[in-house]
């Protein structure tokens, strides 16, 4: 029993656990919007893009959080703009923007390891959580909750049906930008604990599992947030005992939850989450009998 409670006597673990719970809840909440908008790949790319700013900020002599935040927001808005305009393939544009930024970050982090963020930020570290990280995470979570509460309706409408939402008076580009800003801030604040390469999984998996369990958008928000928080806590605990990066244990915990839910609910829930559920009465699949 003492072995189980032992880590709580260390301040670094309590800080790490607090950060993991907040990061998991934040990613779970945000992931619902991201996955339903079909933006999972953007979340993945953006986390890589932010790493460039994260590494470049010390070189430029500016605050790391500020530098990475501005870099990430600029990348997010660029990606959002490319996706909306569809001038070139969105996946190709995201690939170019984010991998170039990531490569720059790796180069800078490697060559300036005494000043830069270090490669721990690729996979997250239980040891890396500072008080400032907790404050940034708390602020990000607060911002996300406030934004998703007061802008719930236009965000939901523009996620479900952007064309009709625009006709009805919703400023869809502004909603896209708002979501991107929250996403950038959230990824930035979770980099330390989850890491660049794994943050996309914490965005996607709780939301997908929640979607497998419910048909209600409201319940999906609560479920994904709770699943993210619990997976964060369990993952952090495992990270301490197994002595492996916290990002990997958090993602593996999420993945385990996914497998359990899939096993319990069967393939039907997965098809539902993927939008492939059986729909015998689906009008869209019926052949038209109109001749002319």
């Amino acid at each position, binding site marked *: 029993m003492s072995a189980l409670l032992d880590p709580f006597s260390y301040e670094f673990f309590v800080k790490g656990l607090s950060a993991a719970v907040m990061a998991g809840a934040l990613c779970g909440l945000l992931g619902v919007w991201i996955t339903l908008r079909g933006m999972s790949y953007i979340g993945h790319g953006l986390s890589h893009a932010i790493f460039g700013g994260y590494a470049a900020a010390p070189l430029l002599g500016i605050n790391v959080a500020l530098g990475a935040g501005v870099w990430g927001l600029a990348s997010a808005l660029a990606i959002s703009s490319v996706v909306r305009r569809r001038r070139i393939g969105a996946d190709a544009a995201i690939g170019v923007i984010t991998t170039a930024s990531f490569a720059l970050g790796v180069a800078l982090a490697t060559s300036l390891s005494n000043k830069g963020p270090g490669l721990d930020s690729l996979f997250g570290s239980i040891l890396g959580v500072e008080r400032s990280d907790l404050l940034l995470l708390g602020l990000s979570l607060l911002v996300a909750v406030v934004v998703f509460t007061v802008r719930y309706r236009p965000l939901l409408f523009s996620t*479900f049906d952007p064309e009709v939402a625009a006709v009805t*008076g919703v400023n869809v580009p502004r909603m896209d930008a708002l979501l991107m800003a929250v996403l950038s801030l959230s990824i930035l604040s979770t980099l330390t604990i989850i890491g660049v390469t794994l943050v996309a999984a914490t965005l996607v998996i709780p939301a997908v599992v929640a979607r497998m369990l419910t*048909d*209600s958008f409201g319940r999906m928000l609560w479920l994904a947030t709770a699943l993210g928080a619990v997976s964060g806590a369990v993952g952090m605990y495992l990270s301490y005992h197994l002595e492996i990066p916290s990002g990997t244990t958090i993602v593996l915990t999420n993945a385990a939850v996914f497998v359990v839910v899939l096993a319990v609910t069967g393939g039907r829930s997965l098809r539902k989450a993927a939008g492939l559920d059986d729909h015998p009465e689906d*009008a*869209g699949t019926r052949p*038209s009998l*109109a*001749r*002319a």
Partner: protein
Amino acid sequence: MTLISLDHVTFRYGDLPVLRDVTHTVDEHAFTGVVGPSGSGKTSLLRLLLGTEKPSHGQVTRRTGLEIGYVPQLQTVDWSFPVTVQECVLMARTTRRLIPWATPEERRDVAAALDRLGIGELAGRHIRKLSGGQQQRMFIARALVRKPQLLLMDEPTSGVDISTRHEVLHLLDELHRDGLAILLTTHDLNGMAAHLPHLVALQGRVVASGPPAQVIVPDVLEETFGARMDVLEHLGFPVVVDAADLRTGVA
């Protein structure tokens, strides 16, 4: 009274001309079908009426305070999205309100719109579990909950079966008789267009405008669709048949 007028409107998508010199008026008694093949400019015309696109030349004038309801094509919707019928209709009610949950007044308005469309008992059902006709009714309810004077619909019978097509047609007729102006696009000449009181044939420009008897005629159809078609008559309605089918006996 005129709700929207297009005055010599030209619209380009980039360098591509889509609509040329279109003049058309939508009045408060309109029940109009815009017919034409894919690429004829039907969707662009709808967007100009909605105000989501601006004309390259010419002028679009809307009556002050005009509220427009819009119903998109069913095929454009993500039917796996986790919302119920009630939540879907509520989205359009008030987008500026800062609280996420519905007020009692909003719930009453949504319930009234669903009851008017005959799907009140389906309010708590997931949108994926509706039939084609029920899906169309839900989107019309979402448009009506904003109390519009004009309803615009994009291909309301595209990809639906015969019974759903009849259901939608009768529903629109009822709404029009209740005082709602309606303009819809359709490529379904026999099942939809022939039953509407007014048609506009579009092929980058207005080829013809008037009642079905004036628009569903071989010359207009050939100019609009680029293929020779013959027109028969059945129970007082024009019926379009492919001229090649008549020659080969495949009617």
